[in-house]
């Protein structure tokens, strides 16, 4: 038996696909559990959140600006 320390991410499948894409650039995923769950390295969480937000931001449009 093995115990691996990490962070469990719960998200929707769309976000998960983006995360998989980010993982190809720089690997951080420890285990891909299912459509909604991933285990990643704890120290990478902050960076991942930033990058994910930037990615999602590219896909929002507003009337302003």
């Amino acid at each position, binding site marked *: 038996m093995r115990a691996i*320390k990490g962070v469990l991410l719960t998200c929707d499948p769309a976000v998960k696909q983006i995360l998989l894409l980010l993982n190809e650039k720089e690997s951080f995923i420890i285990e891909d559990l299912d459509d909604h769950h991933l285990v990643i390295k704890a120290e990478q969480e902050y960076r991942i959140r930033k990058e994910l937000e930037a990615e999602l931001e590219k896909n929002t449009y507003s009337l302003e600006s």
Partner: protein
Amino acid sequence: MPSAQNTDTDNDGKQHVQHIIIPFLQSQSQNTLTRLYQRPSSCLSIFRLLSPLERQLVMNLLWLESAISANTMHAWVTREGRKLYDEALVTLSRLHILLTATGKLALNPTFKAGFRQAITGGGSTGSFGIPAEQSDKHPGIDIEGLDAYALERWETILHFMVSSGTGQQPTRPSSGVLFLLQRSGLMSGSQNMAPQITSAGFQFLLQPPHDQLWDLLLQYLRLTEERAMDLVEVLGFIFMLATMELGREYSIENLGVHQKAMLEDLRDYGLIWQRRPSSKRFSPTRLSTTLTSSSPPLPTSSGTNSGPQEGFIILETNYRVYAYTDNPLQTAVLNLFVTLKYRFPNLVVGSITRDSVKKALMNGISADQIISYLVTHAHPQMRKNNPLLPVTVQDQIRLWELERNRLKSREGYLYTNFASQADYEFVLNYAKELDIVLWESPAKRCFFGSIEGHANIKGFIERRTMGAGP
């Protein structure tokens, strides 16, 4: 939300939110509470802060001379009301208002005597305040004067909070107020650094004035121990203020030492008015006389002189916000979640955008708080609409909030590579008993446990291998 600690459903679906002071009172010793109940004014004020059902139960028991059996009382409860009734009994007995010993219900004799005296008048406790002699030399202040004073004091505090960190230099409240704001976690910063509003502080700003006031008072009560003040005196004074008459002057003669020491703080919060700090008399403001009611505690809490008093915000389906106000505080609060575009002498125009809401969410303000602020301060014209706020805007604000929470994370350990299915299930069941399992998959024969449970799981497996080993 700091003010909503515990909710129970009112019989017609309305939520009755337990008052923020009740849990604090429940945490006090029976001795403290009994001393408090010796004052009729405190009994009345605490009574008014109870839920409607609790108030009725107290009333039913108030004039009974002997204890009534719990079964007799229970016979009056309808089937749907059982849960509420049981909860009410628990609350009342935790407050030591109700004695439930030996299957009989009776009021605490001290509370009963105190509250009876409050209802009928009489006694010699003087707990409703000694009125000051009218004197021609120092005529008192009129109600408008008191209202203006309370409003100015209160808005100074709020305005200071909202403009901290924006580079503006608003009037600083007294050091006592600043200390309280920092202690309560509404503002951060130390003695030499300029205080900064915290996420809790932003949430505080959007609450109704009544909740804000109690929030601060509760914090003040928590400080009394550090200051070696007598809690009963402090509470008794606050509850006395709540039963005083607006526009009347009271004498400070009969106040205790600690109560006299409170005068300065209460002046700073705008709860009382005094001609001079050394004055022998004081007048409660509307902030204090409405402490135990749900009517607006601030005289004209919106709009100092322009705009209707009951509400000033119009929100359109196109996310535009028109706020009929010239009050800098209200403008500043709106600025927390609205992109302001134009300003006129009595009107501020802006719109709710994704960016403005996102900024608010990052400050720790929730979508519900934004919506409830808009509802509370909606212009009378808006009140004709049903629902009050355009549904599109409400939904969008909530969606923007959800968008921020697309990713949830929990730290912990992934347990995998179990030798056998039995092994896996054995450990999993243990983890489930500890209630630490966040995710599991029998197919992959692994599960994810929270970080708090790791020590236990580790110990469990070690014990097991040790036991199996030799």
